[in-house]
């Protein structure tokens, strides 16, 4: 009986007990910000998961950093910048909008507009003939 408890407790890396996994926030807004931040950042170890979901020790460490910075009153952007300075843009699940990513963000809209406009133009033109 006890063995199974111990197994589950010990199986989890020690680091998760050094710091409590459950964070306490002073306001609902902070809690919301923490949730949003951690779900929009990528875990670098388990790369299919967000920082919120991942059980990797690094993810736990980074969550703790985010929590600490939130408590210090830093803004979302400052926290994101802090992580990007160390891990690069890879850690952001939401890509930035800049010279290399404009095609990504505007592409779908341009595709849709081109398609619709070409379609309408084509039909109109052909019916005129």
């Amino acid at each position: 009986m006890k063995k199974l408890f111990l197994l589950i407790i010990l199986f989890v890396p020690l680091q998760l007990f050094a710091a409590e996994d459950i964070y306490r926030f002073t306001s609902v807004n902070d809690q919301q910000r923490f949730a949003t931040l951690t779900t929009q950042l990528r875990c670098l170890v388990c790369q299919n998961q967000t920082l919120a979901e991942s059980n990797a020790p690094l993810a736990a460490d980074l969550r703790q950093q985010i929590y600490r910075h939130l408590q210090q009153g830093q803004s979302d952007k400052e926290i994101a910048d802090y992580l990007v300075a160390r891990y690069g843009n890879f850690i952001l699940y939401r890509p930035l909008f800049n010279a290399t990513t404009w095609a990504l963000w505007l592409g779908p809209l341009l595709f849709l507009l081109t398609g619709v406009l070409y379609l309408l133009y084509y039909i109109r033109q052909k019916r005129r003939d």
Partner: protein
Amino acid sequence: MNRLKQVRSILPFIIFAMILFLLWRGLGLRPNQVPSPLINQSAPEFSLPDLLDAKKSVTHKEFAGHVTFVNVWATWCVSCAEEHRALLQLAQDAHIEFLGLNYKDDTIAAKKWLQQYGNPYKRVAVDSDGQAAIDWGVYGTPETFVIDKKGVIRYKQVGPIDNDAWEKTLKPLVEKLRNERA
């Protein structure tokens, strides 16, 4: 209008060919390796306890004047054990100066490990909670950073240093950096 029709006809093929080419190029890439944004920036400042002498500290000032390899390792890391022999060899034959960063490890186990398997490191800094490593953008072990004489990070090796990595990349880099002025 005929030309427009011709373009429309061959457009799908052209788009497909481009995607195919992209995927072919994609096969040669490694999607899960994260490049370091710290390349060509000064190494992060730190002051950590020395593994072998708890009264002393290891700081970033160690880097001044010579080329350093900062190697992130731990006793619980299997690949680090595999890399260890290569590190010893490089320290001895190529006179590489290693600074070890003992990452989230047990200091007693780490000391024992070095005693048992040899110590390639000039100095070893202890990062017990992993916070210093975050400043370096560490996401796995082993990782090795090449620091030049001015304390600037010039290269990051993700994963163990093998013969291939040494001959092709690290050796020429070290020679180049050693020829630079401090």
